[in-house]
């Protein structure tokens, strides 16, 4: 049971800051529930009391009409409860939504901060955007936790004793039976439904992921699919994965339907119990019937929610794991002061991404003096990007040291390190925002003149100028609306705007045609004057003005011609 409830409870624990709103939502929700129950109660009571005459007013009727003060007040009370119920239900919707909005927003921000603190080098760095996207879906999936599980549970906790006392006033056996059934419907059945759903939620998530990959593979591989005449095969594979997903969902739907029917039956059995007692406790039975109908209706959704709790719980677990994971490379507890100079030195660095993968660097020795311009060449896949990751401490070497201005970067604060080194990576992201805001990411107070200068340097200014809204043009998700090459150039302009003294440009010319590439590299010689430039590439064009060229090969850096 804990495997399902645990993660959900921990997510709820995250909502402490919103507890005021959550409690208010619960109180209003209880009041609305109370008015609904009261309405049914009085509706029944009004009949009975009138019918039975004032001779033997029974306890529940008295209870129900106590507020009205007089038996004659029943119609008035009815009207009051009726309109009160409508108003309270309205307030209930408003407050529970306001509370959920707050809770969800808090969860998002907490999640963002958590990932930002631990995963600069892991998630998001190596094509893991889709993993993150799935996690975002998980966060969104927790929106029903408060309204669908928490509030009804609180209502049930209050209702159970109310039922027991109200019915117990005139018939202990009936109270016992109905309360037992209510506890079954509100607590036992949902718990029973939740048991084992963790595995079901997991298998459904896996089936969905498999289908998503099959679809994405087919569509991004359309040229291959057409060239190899694989249309039928690919369609069949998508259909097969879909059938698996549907089977998992069908099993889930059956579970939900079964427990839903169970909850309905429990409520109906309670009504049947009341009816069976009807001739023995006539007046009470009439009131009880209305009361029972309303009470079971209030908790009717819990069994279904329980059957789906596994999915929510699996989502909660992934969210918690991601946000609370330890940092890949933790900040030192007492960071050293930032060095005054910024010579970047690699000393006997040995590195691989995972213990079961081959080494990227076996013995890397490299020293880059401030203000020098160097190129790092090497075949694709050799780990040229790993060098940037190491310098930014997104990954840690197995052995050896990396020094900035003579200080081991392991002792420096990450934020300070990031401020010194600007990196244009292969996965640099363009945000769904204006061009201006995208450019200002690295230096928020750059003026338009500086922005245009950077755009000129990146050879994209003309394209931006041609846009009707210029710098205020909105870039779609992932920089859509611009071609890949243009997007890279915008990212490059952003990197050039950074005040960092060290620039690492990872294949900055990918996506540029040959003429633009030479043009760009020529400009680079001017704009980055005075800064250290590390150009990572698989070949040179010949126009670069460089102080040194290193060739990476066999896990070591070899000096090439200057």
């Amino acid at each position, binding site marked *: 049971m804990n495997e399902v409830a645990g993660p959900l409870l921990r997510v709820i624990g995250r909502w402490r800051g919103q507890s005021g709103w959550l409690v208010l939502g619960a109180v209003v929700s209880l009041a609305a529930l109370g008015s609904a129950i009261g309405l049914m109660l009085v*509706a029944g009571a*009004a*009949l009975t009391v009138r*019918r039975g*005459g004032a001779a033997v007013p029974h306890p529940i009727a008295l209870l129900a009409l106590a507020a009205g003060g007089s038996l004659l007040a029943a*119609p008035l009370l*009815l*009207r009051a409860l009726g*309109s009160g119920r*409508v108003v309270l239900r*309205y307030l209930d919707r408003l407050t529970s*939504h*306001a509370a*959920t909005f707050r809770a969800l927003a808090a969860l*998002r*921000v907490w999640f963002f901060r958590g990932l930002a603190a631990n995963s*600069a080098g892991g998630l998001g760095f190596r094509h893991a955007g*889709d993993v993150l996207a799935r996690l975002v*879906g998980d966060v969104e999936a927790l*929106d*029903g936790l408060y*309204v669908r599980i928490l509030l009804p549970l609180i209502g049930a906790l209050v209702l159970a004793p109310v039922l027991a006392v109200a019915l117990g006033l005139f018939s202990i056996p009936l109270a016992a039976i109905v309360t037992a059934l209510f506890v079954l419907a509100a607590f036992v059945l949902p718990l029973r439904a939740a048991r084992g759903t963790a595995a079901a939620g997991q298998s459904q998530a896996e089936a969905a992921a498999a289908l998503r990959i099959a*679809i*994405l*593979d087919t*569509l991004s*591989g*359309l*040229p*291959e699919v057409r*060239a190899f*005449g694989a*249309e039928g095969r690919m*369609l069949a594979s*998508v259909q097969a994965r*879909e059938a698996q997903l549907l089977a998992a969902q*069908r099993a889930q739907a059956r579970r*939900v*339907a079964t427990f*839903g029917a169970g909850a*309905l039956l429990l409520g109906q059995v309670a009504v*049947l119990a009341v*009816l069976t007692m009807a001739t023995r406790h006539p*007046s009470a*039975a009439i009131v009880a*019937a209305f009361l029972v*109908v309303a009470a079971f*209706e209030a908790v009717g959704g819990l069994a279904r929610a329980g059957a789906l709790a596994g999915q*929510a719980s699996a989502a909660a677990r992934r969210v918690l794991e991601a946000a609370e994971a330890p940092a890949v490379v933790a900040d030192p507890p007492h960071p050293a002061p930032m060095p005054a100079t910024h010579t970047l030195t690699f000393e006997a660095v040995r590195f691989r991404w995972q213990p079961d993968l081959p080494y990227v660097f076996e013995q890397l020795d490299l020293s880059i003096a401030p203000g020098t311009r160097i190129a790092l060449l090497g075949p*694709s896949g050799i780990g040229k990007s790993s060098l940037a990751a190491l310098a930014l401490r*997104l990954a840690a070497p197995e052995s050896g040291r990396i020094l900035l201005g003579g200080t081991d970067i392991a002792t420096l604060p990450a934020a300070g390190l990031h401020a010194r080194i*600007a990196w244009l990576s292969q*996965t640099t*992201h*363009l*945000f769904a925002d204006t061009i201006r805001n995208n450019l200002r*990411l690295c230096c928020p107070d750059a003026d338009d003149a500086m922005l245009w200068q950077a755009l000129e340097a990146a050879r994209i200014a003309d394209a931006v100028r041609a846009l009707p809204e210029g710098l205020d043009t909105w870039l779609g998700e*992932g920089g859509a*609306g611009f071609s890949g090459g243009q997007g890279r150039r915008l990212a490059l302009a952003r990197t050039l705007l950074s005040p960092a003294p060290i620039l690492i440009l990872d294949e900055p010319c990918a996506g540029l045609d*040959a003429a633009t590439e030479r043009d760009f590299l020529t400009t680079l010689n001017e704009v980055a004057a005075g800064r250290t430039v590390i150009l990572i590439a698989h070949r040179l064009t010949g126009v670069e003005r460089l102080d040194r060229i290193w060739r990476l090969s066999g896990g070591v850096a070899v000096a090439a011609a200057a």
Partner: protein
Amino acid sequence: MAVHVVAVCGSAFHSMNAPSPPVSPSPATSSAEPGRSAALARAWLRAETRRAGRTTRWPILTGLVAVAAGALQAVLAGAVLARALAALAAALHPPPPIRFPLAGAPAAPAIPALGITAYGQAAAGLPPPPPPHTALWVLLGGFLLAMLVRAAANYASERFAFAAGATARRHLRSDAMARLLAAGPAVLAGQHSGALAAIVMDRIELLDGYFARYLPARTLALVGPALILLVALALDPFAALVLALAGALVPFGMALAGIGAKRATERQFAALSRLQVRFLDRMRGLSTIILAGRAEAEAAALQTAAGDLRRRTMRVLRVAFLSASILDLAAAAALVVLAIHYAQVLAPAGAPAKGVAPAAALGVLLLVAEFFAPLRSLASVYQDGIHARSAAAELIALPPAPPEPVARTVRNVAAQGISVAFEHVNLTRDAARGAVLSDLSFRIPAGETLVLVGPSGSGKSTVIETLLGFHRPQSGRVTLNGADLSDVVPAALSRLTAWVGQRPKLFAGTIAENIRFARPEASEQEVTAAARAAHVSDFAEALPAGLGTRIGEGGFGLSGGQAQRIAIARAFLRNAPLLLLDEPTAHLDPASEALVLDSLRRLAVGRTVILASHSAAAYEFSGRRLHLAAGRVAA
């Protein structure tokens, strides 16, 4: 249809079981011609609704059985409770004290067999009442039976609803995939494959709610209350009148409260999903944000955006929820009016004019909840309807299946030795950018090599892609062994060709599976041989599981050169007579390039080869050279 106006925002949130909300309405795309695209979406949904009619019939029918069983339960429970009432009255006033007459009470002829009228007859002072001829246990048994039927019908209705949703999704997904597959690589020119995949995966999942929940609920919200109304009419016409009025109040009141609110609500849904898009976007770019030192600023901005949106959303919801309250108001009003009415009718001293059997009165009161239940169900799935329209708009935007080539006479092309000829071919892909190929003519005899050289944009790739069937020339002829390309069915064409492009696609799976993609029926030995010939084995042996290493999504990341060698292994395995090489070394470093070229030279032996290249690779192949410039043969 009036029920459409039941625009209740039951909840602005997605239920936990519902698929995730649409996460892409970008501000740019949704604003274009909103009226027309909305009308198209509605028309499309209507057509799909008709098509799904057979599958959605079952959840509706079983749902109706459940409603009927619920009504029967209310009537029976009323009868039992009425007995209790009678017992109570008898205990208090031994002789029947009730004076209101009941001749012709509408309930009397309605359900006499159940003995519901027994009390009324007694009350009316008719001849001594026969003892109730329906024993209590019969009533209770009937209740039990109805309860079982109702639970079973509910269960069946949910199962049928799932089946309806599943059938619709299966059809829509296969249809969308088939359209995209038929349209081929051309669709990728305008749209990112990720966005297309999101449509095929998420939007179609989202439509499940429409077919499984919304459609049945919409019909049931009309038919269910009507059925209850008939039962109420049989019990007490006054009650039927009250319920009918209350029911009519629902769409009417909602129209009043909801006309403005509905549009605002939909806008707010869009704003909500924009916030989700923003969150998603910032998460995708998380490392960029961190490295720029902007994590804290972005977190704060995210919080502010969420707060702003919440305040604006709540303003809208304050109005939108009013329409939900109309439903509550109608239900409460009906209950209160009827309870007060019956309290007076049943009062010892009151209401001489008309009488209603207590059984009927109690039954009616219990029916009130049943009457509004289908309306509530519809309100709770209302957003499934909204989401369906946005999903529909995106599905419509997928390319229509292009017409099959008019196979005048499907030609068989000899499988050995292919000669290729372009005869005055003109091809324009994008009218704004002019012709890609203009009046291009050349000829390659079987078994020879043609090297296409020229700057990028000169049409080299287009020549190859035309031979692959990605594009269709506007005029001129492309022939294989003299047979017009447009007469060759795609499947036959693909059997004749092997292709190595600039950036091969690796599918999620093992290296061996990726090679086998070229020819699924190939034997283990053939795959291994192809891997060796293309130098795949060289690097695969260093990997944890050799050729069984998983690559692609979620697998081991290969370099560009390694991916290219897998593409060449595919071509080896394909063993087709026509080999098309499109800049196969464009993105490789010199060392990888040498390896790849070595494999390619061996692959080329004995085949007709067309190689497009602007690099040194061109000089590694002997053969005729064709210089292209702006889509024509350069002098």
